């Protein structure tokens, strides 16, 4: 890393990373592992034994478990020590989110409290507000929620109708409006509420205590999954909020909301790690106990395929998540060194990596949906019974593709933001694109006998595919490209898989540099399989894009390039997947 300029958000598309620039989970230190163990013990002792009672909304149970997490210090992981938190770094907070992600409805309540419930105050609060709220949010004495969404303002968050009007005396804002899908709303003591002051175009944010006059709470929503988490509508009728409870300046709200969402997206990527490993464990245990045709179903290739794919996708997601964590952490440190205040440094770093946050939110949520779906399938009829844990995992997973910005919004963010960064010249994306001479590409790339060099080239080829297509698309559509959502989705899929492919490639290479070749064979199997699957998905997305906008005279040329860029080193993927499954089956749990 020395003498090298830190990588910018999105720059991965034209810049290769080396293994010393990334962090992999194999590098957690003793103290981080101890913290993770506490989180795991907490899930095992306090959450899982109570999960059915939580899902049945037993009065007061979920907030009491959150408060217990507070006693263990788990609500104050990221809160600075001067506000009675534990001031842990970003990667550690991601590790905590990862392990606690296995707690079903509890995880959602935990994430909402420590993320959107606490961070607006931590990042944007003035000293007085931070002193007043943060120590109590860290201990769990106060629980937090975040009120942005309205019946007619979901993905289009800035279109909210909730109004704030300053009273004549200038002491209070009078707030009127309705908020919905408020996680933790049933018990939260502190609400961050977004409203427009007078006829402002942009939102403002307010800290509202539950006992302020003029607030009513609807009963709990009846949801498909995460049933135990609290989700309510909240009505504000002439609610009087002291002026000192304005968060930031008037009109700052939309920026606050967007920046907090960046973090929520990355954290979701971490949450699904724990959730996916839990679902994989349920799957492999069941397949090791269930007999059909006089043998355990885990001996069948059909089941091994599913188990291996679950593991590979979860492993790939994990590789990308901790790579992003390290990027953000490095960036936070850089801002702090430059004299930026800690809260702002975090916000800026998270915004810098908004593309990576959006793409990992999409990849992670769809990975978990794949894992739980195949988990149900492995359980067969039992998987459809509400008696089994995998059935809950299946229902609980679905929300991840909807909240923290739908996957559609996040695909748009991924592609659109990257293209705009290129157009603004934040890094020379289009210059790099124009360097690729697609006329001179052979039918297939030339592979050598250096395994990792070949992988590096393949990952670069994936990125090149995006570069040539986006160069052509921006010329074709100019400013109208953002309206071509289907094409942007193709692009987002290519960008995402390029990033995740590079992350798993770098991780496997780094693992091999630590553990040696022999102990890393299984990781090469994962990499081979992941790259193979990604190439196929890239091919489909590329072809769809080419047929949808490339001039018919040029199509063949682009299709040749597409074939070149998505041709990967041949390997026996079936046997590789079997080895992965066999290890999982022997260990009877995810331990990669």
């Amino acid at each position: 890393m020395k003498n090298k300029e830190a990588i910018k958000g999105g720059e991965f598309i034209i810049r290769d990373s080396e293994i010393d620039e990334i962090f992999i989970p194999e590098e957690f230190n003793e103290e981080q592992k101890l913290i993770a163990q506490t989180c795991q013990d907490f899930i095992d002792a306090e959450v899982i034994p109570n999960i059915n009672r939580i899902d049945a909304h037993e009065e007061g149970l979920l907030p009491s478990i959150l408060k217990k997490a507070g006693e263990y210090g788990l609500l104050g992981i990221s809160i600075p020590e001067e506000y009675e938190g534990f001031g842990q770094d970003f990667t550690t907070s991601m590790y905590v989110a990862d392990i606690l992600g296995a707690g079903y409805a509890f995880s959602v309540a935990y994430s909402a409290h420590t993320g959107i419930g606490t961070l607006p105050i931590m990042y944007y609060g003035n000293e007085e507000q931070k002193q007043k709220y943060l120590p109590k949010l860290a201990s769990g004495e106060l629980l937090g929620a975040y009120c942005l969404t309205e019946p007619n303002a979901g993905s289009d968050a800035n279109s909210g109708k909730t109004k704030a009007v300053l009273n004549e005396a200038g002491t209070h804002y009078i707030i009127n409006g309705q908020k919905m899908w408020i996680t933790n709303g049933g018990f939260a003591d502190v609400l961050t509420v977004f409203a427009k002051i007078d006829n402002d175009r942009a939102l403002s944010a307010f800290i509202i205590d539950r006992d302020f006059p003029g607030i009513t709470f609807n009963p709990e929503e009846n949801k498909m999954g995460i049933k135990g988490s609290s989700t309510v509508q909240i009505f504000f009728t002439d609610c009087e909020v002291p002026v000192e409870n304005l968060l930031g300046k008037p009109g700052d709200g939309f920026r606050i909301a967007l920046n907090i969402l960046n973090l929520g997206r990355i954290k979701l990527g971490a949450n699904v790690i724990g959730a996916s490993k839990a679902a994989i464990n349920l799957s492999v245990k069941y397949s090791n106990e269930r007999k059909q045709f006089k043998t355990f179903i885990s001996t069948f290739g059909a089941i091994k395929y599913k188990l291996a794919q679950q593991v590979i996708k979860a492993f790939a997601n994990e590789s990308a998540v901790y790579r992003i964590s390290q990027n953000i952490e490095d960036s936070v440190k850089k801002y702090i060194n430059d004299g930026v205040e800690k809260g702002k440094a975090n916000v800026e770093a998270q915004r810098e990596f908004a593309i990576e946050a959006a793409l990992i939110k999409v990849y992670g949520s769809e990975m978990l949906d794949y894992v739980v779906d195949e988990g149900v399938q492995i359980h067969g009829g039992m998987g459809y019974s509400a008696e089994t844990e995998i059935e809950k995992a299946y229902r609980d997973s679905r929300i991840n593709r909807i909240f923290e910005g739908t996957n559609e919004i996040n695909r748009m963010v991924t592609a659109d933001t990257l293209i705009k960064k290129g157009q603004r010249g934040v890094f020379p994306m289009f210059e790099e694109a124009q360097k690729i001479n697609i006329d001179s590409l052979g039918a297939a790339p030339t592979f050598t006998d250096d395994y990792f060099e070949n992988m590096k080239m393949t990952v670069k080829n994936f990125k090149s595919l995006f570069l040539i297509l986006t160069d052509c698309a921006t010329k074709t559509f100019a400013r109208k490209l953002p309206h071509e959502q289907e094409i942007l989705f193709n692009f987002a899929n290519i960008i995402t898989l390029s990033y995740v492919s590079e992350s798993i490639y770098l991780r496997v290479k780094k693992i091999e540099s630590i553990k040696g070749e022999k102990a890393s064979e299984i990781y090469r199997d994962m990499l081979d399989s992941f790259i193979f699957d990604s190439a196929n998905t890239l091919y489909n997305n590329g072809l769809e894009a080419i047929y949808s906008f490339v001039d018919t005279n040029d199509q063949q040329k682009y299709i040749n390039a597409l074939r070149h860029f998505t041709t990967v080193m041949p390997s026996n993927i079936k046997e590789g997947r079997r080895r992965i499954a066999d290890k999982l089956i022997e260990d009877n749990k995810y331990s990669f």
Partner: protein
Amino acid sequence: MKALICIGHVPDTTSKIRFTDNDTKFDTTDIQYIIGPYEELGLTRLLDIKDAGTDLHITAINVGLKETEATLRKALAMGADEAVRIDIDPTDAFFVAKQIAEVFKNGEYDFIVTGKESIDYNGGQVDGMIAEFLNIPSVTGATKFDLLEGKAGFEREIDGGKEVVESVFPFVTSAGKDFAKEPRIPGMRGIMAARRKKLEVITPVEQNLKTEVSKHYLPAAKPACKMVSPDNVEELVRLLHEEAKII
């Protein structure tokens, strides 16, 4: 009052057990280590006693190489005041007991708590041997433990009932099930504090080995379960007689 608590560094209970070097050594590849569950209960009980107001200084001790420090650090995070690691790969119970007895002699401790057995080699001998080395009382497999005025009170499970025992100081006791309710989970405060607590590494005393492991082997796989239809009693009798050979 000063207590010494032995902290076993043992494989996680879900570990896959494999052997290497002609089955003479345990294969530690990919093994996650934990505090022995009985020692964890022992430490938890001591912490409960301390939290209830007794002036008790708790030293966690382990005989092992550098990698066991993570386990000792967890004991510190749970609340032990300091830790000692005797820097050698432990071989047999006699050797380990000798090392711990030496530390006890040099440290003005009032009593020692061990687990009733380690969950890897299930030796269950160290506590008794320590008592013998030091010539002090030993109460094994205690299920209840309290510090009383000038003495300690214990309960032990015996065949068909319970035994209530009292002992003068110093003594060794080994913690059994129910020594404490649930093992304590270290909180963030404890984890952060553990960084600054003293973890002393000391060199072992000389002790010749008394035993050596010649071979490990895994239990034979259980044969498949045979189902006999309820109206086929003859077949059941035949199987019990000819295959199971129990009638």
